[in-house]
Structure formats: structure tokens, C-alpha cells
């Protein structure tokens, strides 16, 4: 008996260990010297206006709320892009742009109004024709704000189309009406080509199966059906940039596009991206859930671009951070920016668009020419 009591006490002590020990605790990690730099996302595309979105970095441990988003944009910067031929354009802050002065197109006016509200840090090449951005040319970016100067250089490669695009239902998908777009591509036999794949659903029938506790106004265990669209282009999932090293140079191959997530912190995308089961897929019509509405196949605008090697390194590092973000076992790496004295990327994309529908009966080979407001 005498021996049992100490044993018992020790066991009890051990049992209650979890309460007396912090397996996980918050620690002070504040770093005194954060950088507060300007973040640039500047894009040039032949046939379309060059634009740049400027934001500011913040200390990692500062709180994030609606004010953060409001304060994050950088206005009042002076931005110019010059070509290797000596031509130059200025990018004008969207708040200073009076679109009605050079276009009466109502859709365009509405677009710019909404951009002014949502993205006050957007700067855009104001006046058509948009022939400044050309393939096989190099460009220099200069940004001046509050005495700081940021510079960057990029090259717009020549465009190279996909041979064909088609849709295939995926038998392994969670629902039978889901699939991917496949494409056949012939890589030019010059080494160093990089492709970037993006997509934007112009039309999507969203079906939501609610459980026992739906939001206000929705009946339990019902199905909601809404027609939605993606407000902007989204990068494909898992390797939206690929280069032709490692044996792909000069070869023809088939590969497929995985639909990226619409999550965007600058916009409320809950409407588009609620259906977790459909992540990674496009929908090909056919109603699976019980309701009486029509379900149409997705209409998708694909953007297939050539970008230069520095841009590839940047987007690849961004892809890596996205996929390993928060994982403590991943070696942290910074995005490989080409902006001097700033973060972000200045890149040119030789883009070719395809307007495709998620149905198995069609092979697409013709390119599509989107309007200005479709390219964002």
C-alpha cells in the first residue's frame, strides 16, 4: 500500500500535466527593423494599357482589419515606363483619370468607377492606342514617391499559342460534372521559354447545398443556385508558371489546368468560392443537387502567356509561399522580386486568350480578343 500511494500521486500528476504545461504559447517576435516598402505589381501586355498597382508593406505583427486594407494603397506616385527605343509613357493614378474625357463606352466608365473605389493604388496608361507594349522589347519602370525611387526592367517575349484546348470530365472528381481544361502545347526549341496560365470564369452556375444551420434567409438543407462570375483573372493551381528546362524544350505535350482559388483579400469572394468540393475544377453543367434551376457549363476566359525568366522566378517563389504558407517545416523564402528598392514584380506578358466552355464536345484552337475590361 505504501508503495502504491506515491505511484498514484505520480500518475495523477502526469495526467494533469497537460493543464500545467504550455505545449503551445504565444511568444513575442516583434522585430524592430521592418522595412515599410512599396509593393509593385506592374504589367505590360501588347495591345492593352500598361498598369501598376502600388501598395505598401506593413510589419507582420500589426493587426489586420478593414482600415489596413484602406490604408494599404499608395497614391500620388509618379510612374513612367520607357522602352529600349527611347519612347516613354506615364501611368496615371486611377483617381486622377477622367475616363469620360476619351471614351463614352458605358461599360468602360462603370469599370473605371468601380476600380477607383476598389483600387485607389492603381495606375494605368491612359490613352489609346495601346501599341507601346510590344513583343521582343525591353522596358524600364521608374516609380518616384516621397523621395524614394524604385526601378525595374522586364522583357515582353514573343507570343506562342497553345495548339488546342479541350475539356475533360474527371472521373476522380468529387462530383461527376467536374473536370479540367487540357491543352496541347508545342514548346519552341529555344531554351528558356516560360508559360503562365490564368483563367477567369465569365459565367458559372453556383450550387450550394446547405446543412442544418444555413445563413439568415436560407432554408435548412436547401440548395441555392446563383449565376456568378470571377471578377478578375486567377492563377492556376499548382504550377501556374512552367519553364522548359528539364527536358521539355522543343517538345510537344499535353497538360491540364487546375482551377485556382478565387480568394482575394481585396474583394469579398465568398460568393464565388464557397463550394470546397469544386476547388480545382470547372463545372460542366448537369445538375447534381436537387433543385429545379438550369445549370449551365462554365464559360471561361483562359489567358496563356509567355513571360521572361526573372518573372518566372518571381511567380514560382510566390507559388511556393502560397503552398507552404504557415508550414513551419518549409524553409522560408522571399519572393524573388525584380524591383530595386521595393517588393513585387514588373513583368511583360505576351498573352493569348481563349474563350472556352466546359463541355467535352469541342476542341478550341482559335484565339479570342478580349475587350479592355475583360483583361483584368
Amino acid at each position: 500500500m505504501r508503495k502504491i500511494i506515491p505511484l498514484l500521486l505520480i500518475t495523477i500528476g502526469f495526467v494533469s500535466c497537460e493543464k500545467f504545461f504550455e505545449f503551445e504559447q504565444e511568444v513575442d517576435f516583434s522585430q524592430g527593423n521592418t522595412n515599410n516598402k512599396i509593393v509593385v505589381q506592374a504589367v505590360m501586355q501588347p495591345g492593352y494599357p500598361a498598369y501598376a498597382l502600388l501598395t505598401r508593406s506593413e510589419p507582420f505583427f500589426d493587426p489586420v482589419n478593414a482600415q489596413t486594407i484602406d490604408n494599404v494603397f499608395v497614391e500620388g506616385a509618379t510612374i513612367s515606363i520607357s522602352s529600349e527605343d527611347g519612347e516613354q509613357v506615364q501611368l496615371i493614378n486611377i483617381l486622377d483619370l477622367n475616363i469620360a474625357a476619351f471614351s463614352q463606352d458605358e461599360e468602360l466608365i462603370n469599370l473605371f468607377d468601380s476600380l477607383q473605389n476598389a483600387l485607389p493604388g492603381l495606375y494605368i496608361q491612359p490613352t489609346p492606342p495601346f501599341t507601346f507594349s510590344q513583343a521582343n522589347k525591353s522596358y524600364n519602370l521608374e516609380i518616384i514617391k516621397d523621395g524614394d525611387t524604385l526601378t525595374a526592367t522586364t522583357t515582353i517575349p514573343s507570343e506562342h499559342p497553345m495548339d488546342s484546348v479541350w475539356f475533360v470530365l474527371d472521373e476522380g472528381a468529387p462530383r461527376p460534372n467536374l473536370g479540367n481544361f487540357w491543352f496541347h502545347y508545342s514548346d519552341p526549341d529555344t531554351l528558356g521559354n516560360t508559360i503562365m496560365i490564368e483563367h477567369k470564369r465569365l459565367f458559372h452556375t453556383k450550387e450550394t447545398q446547405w446543412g442544418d444551420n444555413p445563413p439568415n434567409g436560407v432554408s435548412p438543407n436547401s440548395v441555392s443556385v446563383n449565376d456568378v462570375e470571377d471578377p478578375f483573372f486567377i492563377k492556376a493551381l499548382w504550377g501556374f508558371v512552367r519553364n522548359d528546362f528539364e527536358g521539355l524544350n522543343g517538345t510537344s505535350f499535353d497538360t491540364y489546368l487546375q482551377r485556382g482559388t478565387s480568394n482575394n483579400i481585396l474583394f469579398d469572394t465568398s460568393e464565388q468560392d464557397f463550394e470546397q468540393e469544386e476547388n480545382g475544377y470547372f463545372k460542366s453543367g448537369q445538375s447534381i443537387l436537387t433543385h429545379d434551376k438550369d445549370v449551365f457549363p462554365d464559360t471561361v476566359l483562359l489567358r496563356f502567356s509567355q513571360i521572361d525568366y526573372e518573372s518566372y522566378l518571381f511567380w514560382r517563389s510566390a507559388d511556393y509561399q502560397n503552398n507552404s504558407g504557415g508550414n513551419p517545416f518549409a524553409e522560408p523564402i522571399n519572393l524573388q522580386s525584380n524591383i530595386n528598392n521595393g517588393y513585387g514584380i514588373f513583368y511583360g506578358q505576351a498573352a493569348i486568350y481563349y474563350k472556352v466552355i466546359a463541355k467535352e464536345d469541342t476542341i478550341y484552337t482559335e484565339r479570342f480578343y478580349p475587350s479592355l475590361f475583360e483583361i483584368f
Partner: protein
Amino acid sequence: MKNTFLSLFLCLSVFHLSAQEKYTLSGYVKDNETGEYLIGATVYVKENFKGISTNQYGFYSLTIEEGNYTVDYAFLGLKTQQKKINLNKDTRLNVALETNAIITQEVIVESEGADKNIESSNMSQVKIDVKNIKKLPAFMGEVDVLKTIQLLPGVQSSGEGSSGFYVRGGGPDQNLILLDEATVYNASHLFGFFSVFNADAIKDINLIKGGMPAQYGGRLASVLDISMKEGNSKKFEVDGGLGLISSKLTLQGPIKKDTSSFIISGRRTYIDVLVNPLINDTSAFKGTGYYFFDLTSKVNYRISDKDRIFLSGYFGRDVFSFRNEDRGFKFDIPWGNATASMRWNHLFNDKLFVNTSVIFSDYKFSFGAEQNDFEFKLNSSITDWNTKIDFSYLPNYKHNIKFGAHFTYHTFVPGSVTGRSGEVVFEPESIFKQYSNEGALYISDDIEVNDELKINAGLRYSSFQFGGPITVLQYFKNEFSGDTINHHRHIEPRLSLRYKLDKSSSFKASYTQNYQYIHLASLSSVSLPTDLWVPSTDIVKPQYGRQLAVGLFKNFFDNKWETSIEAYHKKMDNLIEYKEGALPEDNTNTSSDESFTFGNGESRGLEFFIKRRLGKTTGWLGYTISKTTRQFDELNNGVEFSAKYDRTHDISLTATHELNDKWVFSAVFVYATGNTLTPVLDRYVLDGRIYSQYGDRNSYRMPAYHRMDISATYTKNKPNKRFNSSWNFSIYNLYNRANPYFIYFDVEGEGNLTDGDLQSKALQVSLFPVIPSITWNFNF
């Protein structure tokens, strides 16, 4: 001409007459109670103050002038035997030492013999007698080899969660760990908390931190050479231990008395079984669990006085699972080693001893991690077939010549990766394998120049060929004809010397140059077994190291106190790291080489050591101050950065007090500067997502690691009773410190980023709270 010839003849005759006849005294020294051959037993000739040690197999050979001698045979913990010898011919004398019935003056850790630390030309070497480490506080009552050597200066673990130990700033892959000559690639269970070495089956542990002798090679930092017991060749014996968390059982005994014996020893933890019910179902950590088992065994047969064969093996497996459901985060790690060695000792004559070995070694691990919608699994393995022949030639007491040849055939599966993000799965079509052949020739001599100066000079010729398979004979044929392509060949000089300042103090220095042909590429910033073993190729060059060490050794009060100060400086080239942004799926079905970047490293340190060897209270204090850096052109913008495991200060204090013949108390305190980490500085929005900007690599220090353990052992030893037992009560982490294991970042708060209030936090994970344990050990 005739006169010259006559003079020469007379000179030679005189020389011959004046040179006395020399004879060899040789034999084996063993433990009389168990029949175990004793490694490092001292054979000391009093008349000419000459002493040598028995080799790995308990063999000694001493060639001295004809005469009458008094020879002491000694091994700590056993009764010294004195023999009077009239040496007038080559004499074989096998000695069996009795157990020391009086248990006084036992030391905590068997370092050398009384003044071996002063005498030996080897420096930076530590020998540990397993018998005497059992009184230290032990986690869950389990004595551990790796934990004990981590208490010595110059040796560190990276904290709880380490899968290796670090010696003088070297990486965990830079330690050559041998179990009966078989390479053990990951010597840890439970993240370095238990080693794979079951102390009940181990006879001898030798750690070489610097001044590496020529018979060892292939790793830059250290050699941990561990020998298994042969098994009691006199009587059948059972040893066991039942603990709260783990248990073990060892069976040993003669197959044929005094000729052949066996030992088999097994362990298993059942912490998963015990702890799981105690974690609330609602706890975020439900599902976290761990277990391991291992089996160590050996059989030996003495064919004759000249020949013995040994067959030893090890098999072990670990599985660890961690869950944090709140954060949608979990990982699983199963891993383990398997080894088998077959060895044949042969005595050509009293001076020439040879051992031939054929060895198999295999290490497999798998790592899977999942966080929310992202999942990643990595499988890796390395398999070796190895053959060795090692000669030991002792022409006289002034020379101890070793020479031999080694050959290893490696098969690597460096990384077979599968991944999933959302519903998208990535899997390789077939497993990518790499083959290589590694060989070495060496020769060394331990030379006693005079009473003060002893030099150990050695030369090792090592080579590595990537791509195979080829046979041993083909390998050596190609080697000498220079036929093969993609071949690395290097000369490795080894030198150490001892200069005796007086009877109780000496100065030592050593220089080691060595190459390492297989490498551990580390993908993570946290020490987990997620690392991959890869071979040297055209792109991945062999790692190259040079170490210079000097030291002063002094004993006080008749060797009651041992002290030493050692300083070292190491340079390493062709170190390997993953490139920034390298992704594991880049390497599926192909070589990892393009993902690596190469650089160099440097490590400097000063080690202080003071030990009380004798008396009721014994122990030691070790302190190391050091700096370990790396420089890679492609990492951290080419700027030098601290190595992951750079520890500025490292302190270990142990104390053991024998109250009486029943109770022994002990305590251990360790302190180490915290691990490095790459800090996060900024965040920013780009393309609708939030990205992080990190600071300089490894520029942040986690909080320091420190811990105290205590234990009490109560032994019921009834003389003349077959059955003996003892109780060990231990408390690990006495003051319940939450030592940092890793730090990660997460976002907490309500709502989303456009409509909410969120806060990023740094969260530190700790593994082990205060853990009391009781173990009951028995023996019959």
C-alpha cells in the same frame, strides 16, 4: 676492402650482441563473470612504465626485451590483476578480471584509465563505460547513450526534437555512427531522446570529436563507435526493466560455455497507449502519439585461440504523429534502421591481428505533413553493403601500426515525393534510385618517440564513384587504372601528438583532413528527419573538412580530478543546402542535384571540462563557447549567416552522490543558447494575396534551452541471491520549462480580411513538460 668488410662484420656482431632479444606478451583480457572481452583494458608493465590498451576485440600485444616483469591488468570497475612474468619467449597470457566487490570509487562516466587522458596520443576522444552511466537521471528511467554524450563539451543536441547530435559545429550528417561496424544513419528514436542503442546490449562507446584516426573516414565531424556485448558466455542471464512509458528485456547466455554466446535485447514504448486516453477528445492535440520498438542481437563463436566469428544485428522502427486540429495541421513520421554485421577475427601471430567484416545497413524514413488543404509526403531510404579488412600490427611497444581497406556499395532513394493541394494529387511514376561505391585504404602508426612525445601519424586514401553497380574487384581495378568517370579520390592526412609536460599533465595537438561523400540535404528550418541522404556526383562535390585542435590536460590529486581545455578551429567546404525556393517535387524521378547550392562553413570553439572521478560524490562540468557560420553565394544574398545549430554557450553539469550501498542520487543540468530561426519582418498584398517578407537567414534566436533532471536509484542487492532488482525514480524537466521546439506563425481573430479583425501571432511549440517516471530493473 678486406678491412672494411671485417669492421662492418664486427660492428654488426657487436650490434647483434648488445641488442637484447625481444619477446611478445599477448592475449585477451575479459570479464571473469560474464566472459565479455574488455575493450580498452590497460596492460601496464611496471618495470619500464610501459602500458598499452586492449583493442576492439579485447586483444593486446606488447613486445619488450627479455626479462622479469610485473604486469598489471586493469579495467575500471573490475579488480586489477597483477601477474609476475618471466618473459623469455613469446608468451600468450589471457586474463579474466574479477568484479570489484567493493563498490567504492566508481566513477560516473568511464573516461580513460587513471591517467589515460594524459598519456594517450589521441585527443578529443571520450570513452564511456555503459555500466557506469546507469546512475544518471534518465528520461522515463531509460539510460541513453546519446543523451549522455550530449552532456560532454563540444557535443550538442538541437533540443527536444533533434534527430541528431552536433559535434563542434558539424551537422548531424557529419557524424559517423557505427554499431559493431555497421553505419547507423539515424541514431535516434523519439527525436534524439532515446537513441537506437539499447544500453543493456552495449559494451563500449567511443566518441572521437577531433584528431580522427586514419581507420575512420567518410564523415567530417566525429565518430561514435559503439560495440555490442557478446553475451555472457558463462551463464544464462536475464535483465529487464519495466517503466511507466517503456519496457525492455535482455536475454543472454552461453550457447557453448566459454566458446559461444548470444545476446538478444528488445525495447518498446507504450506511451501512445497510455497517453491517448488522457488527452481530452476535444483537445486540439487528440491523435498525437508516438511509439517505437527495437531489437538488438548478437551471436559469437570462438573457433580457436586464433579465430572468432561474430554475427550482430539491429532492427528498429518509430512512428510519430502530431495533430493540431484547431490549426488544421498534422504530420506523421515513420522511420527506422536495420543493420547486420558478420565479423571474423584472426590472429596470424602474436603481433598481427586482423578483422574482416561484411556489413549490411539500411535506413528508411517517411514524412507526411498536412495543413488544411495542403498535403505533402516524402519517402527516403539509404542501403549499404560494406566489406572491411583491418590489420593491427604491434612490432614493439613503440609502434602500433594499423592498416586496412574498406569498400561500401550505397543505394539511395533520395526522395520519392507525393503531394496534394485541395483535390489535386501529385505522384511519381517510379522510384528514382542512385548507386555509388565508396572505398578507402589507410595506414597509421602510434609512435612513442620518447617518454614525453608520442605521435599518431596516419594517411587515408579515400575514393567515391557515383553510378553503379560494380563488384568490389571491378571497383579496385578501375581505381588503380583510373578507368571510371565521375570519380572522386582524395588523400587524407591525420596527425596527432601528445607532449607530456609532467606526470599529471600534457599538451596535445591534432590535425585532421577528411572528405565526406554522402550528404544530408536539409529542407526544413526545423530539425526533423525530413532530410535526404544524397551521394556526391559531378555537381554535388564531396564535403571537405580540416580541423586543428590543441589542448591542455591536467589531473589533480592523484587523478581524482581531471581537467582539460581544448580549442578547435574547423573549416568545411562544399557544404550542401537546398536552393531558396527549391521544391521537393522538382526532384521526383530525377536527381536532386539541380536543387542544391554549395558553400562553406567555419566553426571555432573553446571547451572547458572539469571532472571529479573518485569519491562518494562525482560528476563533471563542461562548458563550450563556440561560433558556427555558413556562407553560400546563393543564400542570404551571399552574406555569411549563423548555422542552424550554432550555439554560443553550452553548459552541462552532472553530479552523482552515493549515499550508501542502497541509494544513489544524481542530477543533471543543461543550458544552451537557443536555436536560430529566420525571422519574418513584413507582410504585403500582391495579386490579391498576402505574402511575407523574411529577414536575414537564421538571424533570430529562439529562447534558450535549459532543463534540470534528477533521479534516485534504490538497489536491493542481496549477496548470494540470484534475483536482484533496483528502482529508479526520475524527474525529467524538474521545473517544467516549456523549452522551444519550433515557432510558427498563424493568424487569429474573427471575420475575414476585408471585414474582420485579425492578428498574426508567433506561436512556440514545446514538447516535454515535467515528466516523472519510475522504472523497475531486474536481473537474474
